[in-house]
């Protein structure tokens, strides 16, 4: 018998796309928002985001080092978490608070549950809530970049019967977190992600659509609601996180509508001006149930299990 060859079970070819490619696509999709943040809020934006990314990567490395798990920095998911968290913070955020937020996101929300793919809550969203709650007294006010003075976000201003123009909202020239103000940049990123098939349209459209519909039903201005606050950032980048959102199309739609409903309920009736983070976190918790409800019947297997 001649030399033995390698045998392995089929399939013998794999698609070229790896986890790191998907994460890289998300990073690319976030770049317009990052650029917009630098233009609107100045170079400190880049510093805040960089600190978050560095802290997230360091937390991941250190945790895996201490627990002797394989290093997963190469999959770039920590970079995505850091970027998302950084972009959902105000530009004058004390850096030490940003560092704590990143560590919470990576260590508590992600790694303690088993690392990538095993976390039930979105790390960036949860860390943002932690920061909001923990540092509510000392956290800086959202700055209005146009006049440079501490001022309310459009949603807070709405409460005070002041409004920003649609164009201002669309381009992001108003107060808010770094990455959430410029709807144009976020939409660009979203289109990129859909075109690259990293995400599907279901969650963002269901989220934004239901939010618009409900704001109209609650007697609010739908367009103003869509363009302000963290809705775009949340709907396109955070509610579409793989680990914490359903995987079937119908599940995604239910998830998106649920997010829209909770967001608008908080905005309309809650004491917080913004409800995106809470909405996503609450729906994250429901995700396993939604997955179970919407599990598809196997082809030809509808008879009995």
């Amino acid at each position, binding site marked *: 018998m001649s030399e033995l060859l390698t045998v392995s079970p*089929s*399939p*013998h070819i794999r698609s070229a796309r790896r986890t790191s490619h998907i994460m890289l696509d998300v990073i690319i999709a976030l770049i317009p928002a990052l650029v917009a943040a630098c233009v609107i809020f100045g170079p400190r934006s880049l510093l805040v985001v960089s600190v978050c990314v560095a802290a997230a990567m360091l937390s991941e490395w250190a945790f895996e080092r201490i627990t002797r798990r394989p290093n997963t920095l190469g999959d770039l998911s920590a970079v995505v978490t850091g970027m998302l968290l950084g972009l959902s913070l105000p530009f004058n955020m004390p850096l030490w608070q940003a560092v704590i937020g990143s560590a919470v996101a990576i260590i508590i929300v992600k790694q303690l549950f088993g690392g990538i793919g095993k976390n039930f809550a979105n790390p960036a969203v949860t860390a943002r809530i932690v920061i909001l709650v923990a540092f509510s007294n000392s956290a800086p006010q959202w700055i209005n970049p146009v006049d440079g003075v501490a001022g309310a976000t459009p949603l807070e201003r709405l409460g005070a019967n002041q409004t920003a123009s649609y164009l201002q909202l669309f381009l992001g020239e108003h107060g808010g977190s770094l990455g959430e103000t410029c709807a144009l940049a976020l939409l660009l990123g979203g289109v990129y992600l859909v075109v690259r098939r990293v995400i599907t349209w279901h969650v963002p459209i269901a989220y934004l659509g239901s939010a618009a519909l409900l704001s109209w039903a609650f007697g609010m201005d739908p367009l103003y609601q869509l363009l302000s606050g963290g809705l775009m950032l949340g709907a396109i980048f955070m509610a579409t996180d793989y680990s914490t959102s359903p995987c079937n199309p119908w599940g995604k739609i239910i998830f998106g509508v649920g997010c829209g409903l909770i967001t608008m309920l908080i905005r309309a009736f809650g004491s917080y001006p913004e409800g995106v983070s809470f909405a996503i976190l609450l729906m994250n918790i429901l995700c396993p149930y939604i997955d179970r409800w919407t599990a*598809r019947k196997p082809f030809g297997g509808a008879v009995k299990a």
Partner: protein
Amino acid sequence: MSLFRLKGVRTPHRKNTAQMPAVRMPAAQEVVIPMSMHIGAPATPLVKAGDTVCVGDVIAEAGGFVSAPVHASVSGTVKSIGEFLLTSGKKVPCITVVSDGMMTVSDCVKPPEVVDRESFLNAVRASGSVGLGGAGFPTFVKLNVKDPAQVDTVVINGAECEPYITSDTRTMLDRAEEIEEGIRLLQTYLGIGQFVIGIERNKPECIAKMQELAARNTAVKVVSLPSVYPQGAEKVLIYHTTGRTVPAGKLPLDVGVIVMNCTTVAFLAQYVRTGMPLVEKCITVDGSAVKCPQNIIAPVGTALKDVFAFCGGFREQPAKVLYGGPMMGIAVVSLDAPVIKNTNAVLALDEQEAKMPSPTACIRCGACVNHCPMRLDPAGLSRALEREDAAALIKGRVDLCMECGCCSYICPASRPLIQQNRLAKEYLRKKKAREEAREKQKAEAAKAQPQVQQEEGKQ
């Protein structure tokens, strides 16, 4: 036609040899013919060492109802009857024939007399035909339907959805008349009224050629299928060509359909015309390690090393050699493995192409779920197997997995999903066997119990 398409993956096509008509390779010095080149019982050898055989001589008869006879593919002398290790790990007898280089055709090879259903089916049985698409189910068994009225449609599989393989493409282009004749035979002798030829859209020439055929025969319809793997999978093909869903655990027959590969149909016509049984096979020889990829016609039993030598040898040392395409093909251990009846391609992959990325953590992206043609949840099944949750595996219908490999192909974390499904099926099989054994033991113990008590009573 179906409203919703079943999912699949877009694999690279790599149909490098589509424009190359098959070249007949000369007989090798020696052929090794295994007795199991089909699904079912192995054939029983009828010859012994030292016998002289000619091309087309029966050298083994069907070993059961679901089986097929085997014929000599070269003329020469039977060297030995040995043991052959199948890719499945089973051992079956094999007949080694040393070629005399003459390729003398046997006197037995003459066109069979086909006048009615029975004589046609007998001819199919005698031809040694098996499903040439790859599965190798004996054609006679497939066509010998108990209730002929049950079947109204024959779906002819020209999808050829695996990358690299073009042997069916060549059949459709070079042997269109034989496909037409084969359809006529099935129409005349089995009374089947409708024929649907399913072809992937990446073969426009084949679609055109088959449409010419359909123009001449109103019973024939050509359906162009999207170029999405696995269009050629039986249940997927039936659904996309006829809109019928084969229920779980049922056969195509239950929805009135027989699926046949286009090359099988062409072969039947060829056999009825010439009487030459299935002794040679058109195969695609390709892969990154092959010097001159091409389509060849090789006698059944030709060792792969002779096949590759005919194709100019290797560009570089092959790391993996496959029977069939890269999605469902089976890796062979040695180049001594022969071409068998249902081989439609042999691929030699170089080290780089054969290299598999190592698995990383599942990121729950849902790609496997959203690409599974059977709408299963491969990642969920994989998790269920890891925690040995038999109930979840049964509920998740792991039995429906046809092992097409879409999940493993698409997984960005390179998880061994389809491999886990295979293990899960094996796990359930073993668990069931264990439980049955335990039940049996219990029943026997219960039977033995009263006797023991009686004996004790006597004392």
